[in-house]
């Protein structure tokens, strides 16, 4: 859904998110264009999720967030979604009591007329059929979303973004808890989607990042500390320092693993706080 052939973009300028007195996002500038596959990484508590929350009006934003010429700051969530911004959540949140088809149908409905709303769904639209195929959910059309596997729920979420005609896809840890095969399938899907969507992926999985990221933005303590290709970011001394040393609230093992994935020496990791944190997905 490009408008007059100009590539779509999401441009965040000087974004600040303050909770009470705690500054969770502190002057973030971020521009992502269609065709890129941008990964947003950083230690726990860096402010990645909060940045996405700010774009979707879930967190109080100051600054400017521009999507294809539309200013998003100050608008309500459902309006922002109508401008074409879609997101997934760190914890998959599909409608568990509804079937896969019903989930997708609801997601596809935001531009439906009132009269259509009052009618029963007859048949399955070509678009939904196609998306179910792409996300491997065709066989589960009538399955309640609540009984899907974790990976399938994540796919269903991505599928919902696709049928909703979102132009900006903000994915918060989409492969957390997926098997290797599922990760690869998801990576391929994201790569495809990035061709005609603005895609931002928040991820902790560094192997996944190295395989699929086109560009990387690194956040720490509410600020952006580096941006570039995977290789550039790996070579960045500040990034190395953050991933090797004072790395937030991760456990030592996790920090070492991440450092290794980044191509650094895991034994150089010194500090690590045991992960009695709020990370539910591991």
């Amino acid at each position: 859904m490009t408008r007059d052939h100009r590539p779509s973009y999401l441009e965040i300028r000087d974004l600040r998110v303050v909770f009470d007195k705690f500054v969770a996002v502190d002057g973030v500038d971020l521009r992502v264009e269609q065709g890129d596959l941008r990964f947003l990484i950083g230690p726990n508590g860096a402010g990645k999720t909060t940045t996405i929350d700010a774009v979707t009006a879930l967190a109080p934003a100051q600054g400017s967030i521009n999507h294809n010429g539309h200013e998003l700051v100050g608008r309500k969530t459902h309006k922002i979604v109508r401008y074409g911004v879609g997101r997934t959540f760190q914890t998959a949140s599909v409608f568990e009591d509804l079937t896969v088809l019903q989930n997708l149908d609801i997601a596809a409905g935001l531009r439906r007329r009132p009269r259509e709303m009052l009618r029963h769904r007859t048949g399955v639209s070509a678009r939904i059929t196609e998306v179910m195929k792409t996300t491997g959910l065709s066989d589960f059309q009538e399955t309640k979303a609540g009984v899907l596997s974790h990976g399938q729920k994540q796919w269903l979420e991505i599928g919902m973004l696709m049928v909703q005609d979102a132009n900006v896809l903000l994915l918060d840890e989409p492969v957390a808890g997926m098997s290797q095969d599922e990760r690869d399938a998801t990576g391929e899907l994201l790569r495809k989607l990035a061709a005609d969507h603005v895609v931002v992926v928040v991820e902790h999985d560094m192997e996944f990042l190295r395989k699929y990221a086109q560009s990387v933005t690194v956040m720490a303590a509410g600020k952006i500390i580096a941006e570039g290709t995977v290789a550039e970011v790996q070579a960045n001394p500040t990034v190395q320092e953050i991933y090797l040393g004072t790395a937030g609230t991760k456990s030592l093992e996790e920090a070492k693993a991440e450092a290794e994935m980044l191509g650094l020496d895991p034994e150089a990791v010194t500090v690590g706080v045991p992960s009695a944190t709020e990370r539910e997905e591991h």
Partner: protein
Amino acid sequence: MTTTATPPATTTPSTTGARKLPSVAEGPGVWTTGPRGALIGLGIGAVLLLVVAPLTLGGFGLDLLGRYLCMAMVAVGIGLVWGRGGMLAMGQGVYFGLGAYIMAMHMTLADTTLEGESIPTFMRQNGVERLPELWGIVQHPVIAVAAIILVPTAVAGLLGWAIFSRRVKGAYFAILSQALAAAFAVLIIGQPVLTNGSNGLSNFQSLFGWDLDDSGNRLVLFLVVAVILLAMLAVTWQLYRSRFGELLVAVRDQEERVRFLGYDPALIKTVAYMIAALFAAIGGALFVPVVGIISPADIGVVPSIAFLIGVAIGGRATWLGPVLGSIAVSFAGTQLASAFPSAWVYLQGLLFVLVIGFLPGGLASVIGLLRRRRPEGRGGGRGDGSAGAPDEPGDDPQDTTREATEPEAAR
């Protein structure tokens, strides 16, 4: 591209597919009905109400049943907002009362005119010399009917939008709606010159020129009431299977998630609330000629809660549960109230507590369980667990982990 999907190790419920209404969180979806089932259900209802009842019941019995049917209209609306929409509307007496009072004012005026007077007796006794404008408006029958339909719906629209767009929900909404009912009753009692206060309006002779003492006319009135109730059931059936109905359930279960699909939950909830208000108002308006009196005692807090009891007992999220529950409770009330006048109120309260506490799906869920003889296994046999099982939400759709990590908590 094709992805390698790990099929969940559950038996896909293939037979209970597309037609199925979304189930209630606390029980399997019962009386889930396709077009054929709906026609059968409505057909049985029509035969019972339009043929069997008039043939077997005397005038008194018909009046009583007609009264139950009027109350049941409120229940149908409550089923929509509460059962499907999750809004515990404890103040439907307001809309019932609005419909009823508009109708009662119109009928009182019509009778007054027939008697050759210009001002109702109770007003003259209060020393009123000119008909208040509020009354003058509803003198014409067409305007009265229009007002019965439009006024409560508009009030519900304004109130609903004000409440839901401020994200007032759950117990706060319940308390607020109940306070509205209390305030409305107080308002009516406080305006004896306009409303005849706590005495209410009664002694109606005619409706739209038809003599209400005539037994043939009363039969027609009953049939009209029955047909309107059946029509409301047909409308809710269509609503429940429509996309709007699915969306309403989605809003009930995960309001914040719906926002991220581009919908405004406040709008969806307001529409449901308006429909329920309309049903309640029509029930109230028909209640007046059928029963012959409307007073603040019929519309305040206590009757507002009484409306809920039948809905809860019958199964609030089911299609026919609210209407059947409501009629059953009304019937039991009449029987028991004459035998043990004071005990009935307590028994009603007890029943309500028991059902809400132990059988949130209502009696309908028992029937559903028996019919299916299938364990309620939404969470049973889910994915094979290789994929991050620790994250699986529990059986409650309002899973606490999600509530904590997501939208709701942030506001």
